[in-house]
């Protein structure tokens, strides 16, 4: 159905795509794998007519596509579902489907469109109400609206960019079901993802990109997870995680009855209590947006809780903000390294100094000590194997994995007592993910207490001693890793099951 041949595109000296061939047959789901910067996005933008390639041809349903606009790509039957949905929150499902779609003729005919939405919804099992406002819908349903939009516009090839990154396990299962039904109809799907498990489950074949080139392609039936990971990063990252069993020590991080209201007065977090011991990793899982960000914010001191307390090594740091927590040895890896964890425009040296610039040795009297900053940067770059030309390089020029290494180098370099890590592997390839996990486990072995917030169950189970589940701002489950039952965990994440953790009895959380 789709044949892309010899696609090349370079920006200056950087080859974003080099002689890439991609074939998608009708009724096939093709996984497009690759770390950030490997060229997936460029390739899809070329397909969708948003970027003009330097060389190469695109044939879709036997017709050549060249110099086409996104509008022409849609008209030809290509549908793109971006990671961030292109929907108007204040409008209804029907209105969003009609937006920019002239198939209803000169007049808007909402009733006719609503009928088509309804019939498509039942045909594919989408469960959409045409009159529902987008902002009232969960993310999974919003994604299904995007799918309906594409299907009604006649898309025979759907491109889904990281479609599962903000869905709960039941929603992911639902999405995969929808994709299977589309495949049965003879439509094709390009499924862009980092998550090897999903790719192996849904795709018929995979194409792996690395550094703008095709690093490998294979039928899913004949390949395993480890080979795929190897293809993505070009080296073996499947070695077993070195996870030493040991007994956790004293409580280092204690949070008691935390609650947060946002500016509009809506409760984003309520009644969260737990503790993390020395040498222990507590992983909090849950679908993105269920209070994890707020929880991390108040523990790390970026925001103040409306109620409750935070203790680090027995000292109450609740009201002390970021500074008091840093003094108590709390390190923080924020979720968004692009705008929070790093200042993209500033140099690596400045980014490594981002949170310690006002303390000796980086500050000497009233001055910043440029030599001390440079020395620290060189040490950290060597210790954490950050690939860069030097401390004066702007952080934005580095790859995602190297950027995250800067954050880790800054936060872990000071040998913290407590680490709050928010989605520290988001958007990283398997090699960089492995590096992050190894660092977290090294801190665990050294007696640090780690709160590991993740939306990836698999990864959480890998690092955690205990697992907690967040749903709608509350901790709805807390259990040792050995007791985890995956289907129950999935239900908890979807809010269908609640196990009030008998924290006091099981884990000895005292009300300080």
């Amino acid at each position, binding site marked *: 159905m789709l044949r892309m041949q010899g696609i090349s595109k370079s*920006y*200056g*000296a*950087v080859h*974003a795509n080099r002689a890439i061939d991609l074939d998608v047959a009708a009724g096939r789901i093709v996984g497009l794998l690759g770390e950030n910067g490997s060229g997936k996005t460029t390739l899809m933008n070329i397909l969708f007519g948003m970027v003009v390639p330097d060389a190469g041809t695109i044939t879709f349903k036997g017709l050549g596509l060249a110099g086409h606009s996104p509008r022409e790509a849609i008209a030809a039957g290509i549908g793109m579902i971006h990671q961030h949905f292109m929907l108007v929150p204040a409008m209804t499902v029907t209105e969003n489907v009609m937006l920019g779609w002239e198939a209803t003729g000169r007049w808007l005919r909402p009733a006719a469109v609503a009928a088509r939405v309804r019939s498509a919804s039942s045909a594919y099992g989408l469960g959409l109400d045409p009159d529902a406002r987008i902002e009232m819908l969960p993310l999974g349903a919003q994604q299904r609206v995007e799918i309906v939009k594409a299907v009604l516009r006649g898309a025979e090839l759907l491109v889904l960019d990281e479609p599962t990154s903000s869905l709960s396990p039941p929603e992911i299962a639902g999405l995969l079901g929808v994709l299977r039904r589309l495949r049965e109809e003879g439509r094709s799907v390009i499924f862009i993802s980092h998550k090897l498990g999903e790719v192996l489950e849904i795709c018929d074949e995979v194409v792996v990109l690395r550094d703008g080139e095709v690093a490998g392609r294979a039928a899913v039936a004949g390949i395993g997870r480890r080979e795929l990971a190897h293809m993505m990063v070009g080296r073996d990252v499947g070695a077993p995680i070195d996870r030493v069993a040991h007994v956790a020590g004293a409580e280092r991080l204690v949070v008691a009855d935390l609650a947060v209201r946002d500016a509009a007065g809506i409760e984003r977090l309520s009644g969260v209590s737990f503790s993390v011991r020395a040498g222990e990793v507590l992983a909090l899982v849950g679908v993105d947006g269920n209070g994890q960000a707020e929880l991390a914010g108040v523990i*790390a*001191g*970026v925001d103040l809780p409306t109620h409750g307390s935070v203790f680090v090594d027995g000292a109450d740091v609740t009201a002390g*903000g*970021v*500074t008091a927590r*840093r003094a108590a040895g709390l390190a*923080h890896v*924020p979720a*968004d390294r692009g*705008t*929070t*964890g*790093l*200042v*993209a*425009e*500033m140099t690596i040296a*400045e980014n490594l*100094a*981002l*949170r310690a*610039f*006002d303390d000796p040795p980086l*500050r000497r009297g*009233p*001055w*910043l000590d*440029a030599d001390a900053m440079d020395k620290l940067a060189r040490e950290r770059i060597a210790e954490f194997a950050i690939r860069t030309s030097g401390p004066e390089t702007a952080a934005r020029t580095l790859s995602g994995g190297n950027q995250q290494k800067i954050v880790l180098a800054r936060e872990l370099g000071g040998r913290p007592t407590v680490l709050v890590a928010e989605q520290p592997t988001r958007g990283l390839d398997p090699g960089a993910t492995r590096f992050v996990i190894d660092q977290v486990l090294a801190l665990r072995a050294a007696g640090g207490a780690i709160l590991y917030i993740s939306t990836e169950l698999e990864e959480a189970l890998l690092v955690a001693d205990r697992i907690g589940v967040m749903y709608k701002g509350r901790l709805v489950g807390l259990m040792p890793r050995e007791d985890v039952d995956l289907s129950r965990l999935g239900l908890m994440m979807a809010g269908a099951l609640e196990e009030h953790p008998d924290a006091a009895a099981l884990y000895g959380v005292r009300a300080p």
Partner: protein
Amino acid sequence: MRLALGRFDALAERAVVGRSFYRAIAWPLLAVVLALGLTALLILFAGKNPLLAYAALVRGAVGSWDRVGVGLNKATPYVLTGVGVALCFRARVINIGGEGQIALGGLAATWIALMFPQAPPVVLPLLALMAGALAGAGWAALAAGIRLRRGVHEVLVTLLLNFVGVLIVSEALQGTLGEPGSGFPQSPLLPGAAWLPHLLPGSDLHVGILIAVMVVVAGHALLWRTPFGFRLRVLGASVPAAAYAGISEPRTVLSVMSLAGALAGLAGGVEVLGVHYRLIDGFSHGFGFNAVAIALLGALNPIAVLPAGLFFGFLETGALAMQRAVGVPTPLVSVIQGLTMIFILSAMGLSARRPKA
């Protein structure tokens, strides 16, 4: 001159990036050259010889030590205020309240000079300048407070407070501070002890330019070498990163606004004590906006604000000579200034649109 306020945020964003000296200087130079070229065409259309006009402009600006002194005096308040504006923009605080801050600085300096006419010569100008800086800082802090407490955007607050500040000066000149019987809203002549000393005997050049150079050097050191400058740069680049780094946004905004206000107030004091020797209604007119243009022309680098300020200052003093010699009207200088800004804005817009690898 008028500037498109909506572009300020984008500009500040662009300018935060550039640290390399050459990169910082290439666009402004190109903009100046293009502006001069285009203005030459306008002069040509008006039937005059642009080369003669520019020659007269240069002669008028730097043709004699006397003219150089006048140009330097003209540039002094621009540079002082421009450094403060540049620091504010670095932190993404769009302070366009220079005019009001200058006005109140001049008012406070005048008031002190008239209150203590018996004070010794060195002490009196120092006291008056300090009062001017304090008044400017207070006026800017008021704007910062309204932004921080009530959430009103600082562009609006600083702009509107300009009118209030200028009117307060008018009011004072109509009342207690006015010169009786002069028929013009101005204060009496200040006591000689309050006048700023001249650098060269027989020329108008006063010590203000030395103060401006010191402020430029101090501003550079503050921005690149101190924790405070680091805070400004982080806050300007990313508000969430600043919160993460434990940098208090309110405290930083209040500090940098007060600092910029103090520099503008100082500029007002210098203008009154060094040039007019009295407070004149409307003496700060246009200074605040020119300072914004100069800060941007200097790519928000305090060091580069000095040549940018000198350029504007000499352009204005040269304009009068150009009008006398060739008959090209002085407003043409505003055209050059305006075109320079338009080219800078365009250059920044273009470089922002360049594809990134």
